[in-house]
């Protein structure tokens, strides 16, 4: 069994306007030391998936079903005490906004040692020493002085380093990074990504990286899950996804991003808007925006929900078109971007 197995995960929220199926039938696995990237637009269910793994969806109106096995323990049925002992210990999370996720009243040293004290039987002094060691590790200059700082005294990049230190202080086996660098500048982003890769190599951590930036994915991921409308629409290894994308949505994403190495002509945008999760379209959730239409299967696209089908052992796609059609579409689109024909 894999280190992390997510099987047919469903998360639904009941709201005044109706039931929102934020995540619908998501399955994937992840091994120690590997990185899985979840890619998708806002509202695609990527953050909800990761929050479900962390057990952050409690309270009324939330319905979670399916299985999440972390190292043999089913997290969906685990008690809240059990979850609390695992959060910050076996699994930890880095949030997008380093400005909102540190407590403004407490010194960073205290916030870091709190994470140690919550999970280990150590004295405050030892916890503080541990905090200092971790701050040094994430590359904070003058950690002896910085440990007494409040979050507002640090820059955005420094705060994100503190967040990473806090997440990794108990040596978690699973780290979920939810848009860890979106709020940061590119040069700082480069520093943080480098740091994450180093720490992963050192601790053999499994990382779930949630992002919308395909450049970061190309840099960090081993396997990629593309989500759209709460579903996985494509799942593939790094090279398969970038060089043999199958789902027209993935192709659309790859060809609509302005990139430094493209020919620089007009972008091939995906038309339309992402779907509302309350009123999902009939049939394939992506069909109203799909550019790879084929009259023969058009009726099927508009009425029948496609299943995830195997292209190869580790490449899955949710699309009615047959493989040759999908490949022809992908090749044509990507060639337009890179060659400027």
């Amino acid at each position, binding site marked *: 069994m894999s280190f992390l197995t997510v099987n047919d995960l469903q998360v639904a929220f009941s709201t005044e306007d109706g039931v929102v199926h934020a995540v619908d039938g998501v399955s994937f696995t992840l091994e120690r030391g590997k990185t899985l990237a979840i890619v998708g*637009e*806002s509202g695609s269910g990527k953050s909800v998936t990761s929050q479900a793994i962390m057990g952050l969806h409690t309270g009324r109106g939330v319905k979670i079903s399916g299985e999440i096995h972390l190292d043999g323990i089913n997290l969906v049925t685990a008690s809240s005490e059990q979850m609390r002992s695992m959060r910050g210990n076996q699994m930890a999370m880095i949030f997008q906004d380093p400005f909102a996720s540190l407590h403004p009243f407490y010194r960073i040293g205290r916030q870091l040692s709190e994470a140690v004290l919550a999970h280990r039987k150590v004295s405050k002094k030892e916890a503080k020493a541990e905090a200092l060691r971790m701050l040094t590790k994430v590359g904070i*200059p003058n950690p002896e002085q910085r440990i007494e700082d409040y979050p507002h005294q640090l*820059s*955005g*990049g*420094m705060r994100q380093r503190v967040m990473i230190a806090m997440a990794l202080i108990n040596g978690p086996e699973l780290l979920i990074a939810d848009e860890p660098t979106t709020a940061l*500048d*590119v*040069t*700082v*982003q*480069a*520093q943080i*990504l*480098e740091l994450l890769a180093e720490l992963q190599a050192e601790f053999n951590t499994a990382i779930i990286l949630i992002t*919308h*930036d*395909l*450049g*970061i*994915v*190309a*840099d960090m991921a081993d396997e990629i899950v593309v989500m759209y409308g709460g579903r996985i629409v494509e799942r593939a290894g*790094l*090279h398969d996804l*970038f060089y043999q994308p199958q789902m027209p949505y993935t192709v*659309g*994403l*790859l060809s*609509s*991003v*302005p*990139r*430094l*190495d*493209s*020919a*620089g002509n*007009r*972008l*091939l*945008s*995906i*038309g339309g*808007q*992402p779907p509302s999760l309350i009123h999902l379209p009939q049939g394939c959730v992506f069909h109203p925006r799909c550019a790879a239409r084929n009259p023969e299967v058009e009726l099927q696209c508009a009425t029948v929900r496609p299943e995830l089908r195997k292209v190869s052992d580790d490449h899955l796609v949710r699309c009615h078109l047959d493989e040759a059609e999908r490949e022809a579409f992908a090749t044509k689109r990507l060639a337009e971007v*890179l*060659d*400027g024909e």
Partner: protein
Amino acid sequence: MSEILKVENLEKKFPITKGILFKKQIGSVNAVNGINLSLGEGETLGLVGESGCGKSTAGRAILRLLDPSAGTVTFEGTDITTMSRKDLVPMRSRMQMIFQDPFSSLNPRHTVGSIISAPYAVQGIKPEGGVKRAVQETMERVGLNPEHYNRYPNEFSGGQRQRIGIARAVTLKPKFIVCDEPVSALDVSIQAQVINLLQDLQDEFGIAYLFVAHDLSVVRQISDRVAVMYLGHIVEQAPRDGLYSHPYHPYTHALLSAVPVPDPKLEAQRERIVLQGDLPSPINLPSGCVFSTRCWKATDLCHSTMPELKEMGDGHKVACHFPIMESLGSVTIFGPDSGLTPQPDRVVQPPSEVLQDMESGRALRPKDIDYAGGEEPY
């Protein structure tokens, strides 16, 4: 191409004061420190830099949304730097702004129709065929459903709201628009739609854009020329292809190398220049070159003297004592299409080979560049 905008030695300092009754200035935030820009009709100038570099402040000061501390802004031959608010009103029909955040830049209590028609009311212009028809035509032009005239902004998604903001800016067919990070709040698939829309509008109405953004890929997509800002100074300015294929300034090198490219094989080969440390405070600017505190080529000269912007040929200007002379040439990750003449010691390969031949290493390799001496002749 006639010049529509000229900015000379523009400065903007925000005072830091102390005391309640008798305010005393104890310092200032030096957001923009003497920048020079010019913009031709129908041209796009990208202004890039990291947060805190003064790019947004510069954009606002040029439109007189902020009053410049020094320098002049000449728009269509008229000096608008010291113009009164009242005299500025008629100018505003020809210069507009598109804001970053499509949520806070639209009044939630006004309908889309009244938001887009506001420029007519302010300027006292009565369009032919009535305001409503003109507004609906504009809405259609930017890709909004004209029947949504009476809806409120909260009924629209982020991308559509940005279209409302764009419709408002182009209502009076301006000649110049400052776009302040217009796509950074949008999803990737929507970003492309908005970028395409901005380009179409430019082609149709001949609008000049000052495109302020932090995303170098987006800026490359839309700009004719690009200026790179660091701590309130323009450190490099060049035609787009020149800048992306042969950046001279170490900071531009670092910036470009830090942008991840959605191509795993290429990513695995590229080497990043990871800048050490953080951006210095704009309150106490470093002496000498502003980038010298983080530059790997800095010498005593850099720490003591701020370099002037120097012409390097082909309209490429750089403010550096020791510009990087090695072109990225065919090893560039920035595409085989740059259209630049190949540098003498590098051979540009034809596009197909470059794309296939990943092993030859066309990535940016700082190791290949001799940084040791720091005294390259030029």
